[in-house]
């Protein structure tokens, strides 16, 4: 029963943080002309809240685990939606595939290489 209550409470708190993130995103776009997505700002808000009040983090855990466990499912629609650009993508298919693979793998390797190279002095 307590778990169900925590799940519902967690969902409400996460939804409120998402709304607050959206509001902040609108304010950022309007006053500092910076395109910041609401969900990312909501995530920062939740992280700050959990950092300041660790007991809240424990109560949010069931809802967070449920949502993050299904995160991959929520990415399926835009991936299927790529088919809408099939003609354009087919026209540049090999080049796009090459760019996505080479640039993505090198980006990951460069990030880790820098993390490790500057490690001994900064750690």
């Amino acid at each position: 029963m307590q778990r169900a209550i925590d799940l519902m409470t967690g969902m409400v708190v996460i939804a409120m943080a998402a709304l607050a993130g959206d509001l902040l995103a609108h304010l950022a776009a309007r006053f500092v002309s910076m395109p910041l997505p609401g969900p990312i700002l909501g995530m920062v808000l939740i992280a700050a809240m959990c950092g300041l009040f660790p007991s809240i983090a424990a109560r949010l855990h069931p809802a967070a685990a449920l949502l993050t466990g299904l995160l991959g499912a929520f990415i399926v629609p835009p991936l299927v939606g790529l088919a809408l650009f099939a003609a354009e993508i087919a026209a540049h298919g090999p080049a796009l595939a090459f760019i996505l693979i080479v640039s993505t793998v090198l980006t990951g390797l460069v990030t880790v290489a820098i993390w490790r190279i500057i490690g001994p002095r900064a750690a």
Partner: protein
Amino acid sequence: MTIPTLSTIALSLLTVLAFIGARGAARLVRQHPLANPTLLGALIVGAVLTVMNIEVETYVIAARPLGGALDLAIVALGVGLAPRLKTLGRRLWRAAAALIAGVAFGMVSAVLLGRLFSLPPPFLEALSVKTVSSGFAIALMEATGGPPPLAAGLVVATGVVGALTLPPLLIRFAPHDDIGLGLGTGTAAHIVGTDALMRTRREAAVVAALAMAMAGPVAALFLPMLRPFIG
């Protein structure tokens, strides 16, 4: 308030069930990188749409509520961030330096390679944000006049490429470096990479979520500098 139609409910349910089935299949093959549940789920959904003769556009419109659920899932990632930030401690600046360099490299390399292959400007615009999560990519495209749907699609495709290639590569490179694994995967493969790590290396996944969150604002700062190479 919009009342969800039967097709919205049915196609959203199909998506979630396809993903859960794909996740089960991935467990059966011990989370082999090629058995990425998001990719498998998309293939299952694509097959069902073909068999049922449902147009992709109809599906994408009907499955829109899942976009709202994605927003909530991204917010929920924040629950595990605070303890990880505390663990990073003094290493936070080192992680930030790696992240900034990675994002800059990802954006510049994609645009320059796109120019090398003479891709049209909409593709260059979409590629310029491929290293940030789809929420950021869409916001950045709307702010700069680029193509949001193409950018969102390429972002997810980038995530799938990164989720398939980077974790096995980085684990071979440094098997016990969870922070490096999370930083590299989160920066290059954002949400899909984070999701892949969530099932295999949870510690690294939290760092990946952190990298994904920070990559967006960094990309927003770099994008104006790239504009001359896109237009």
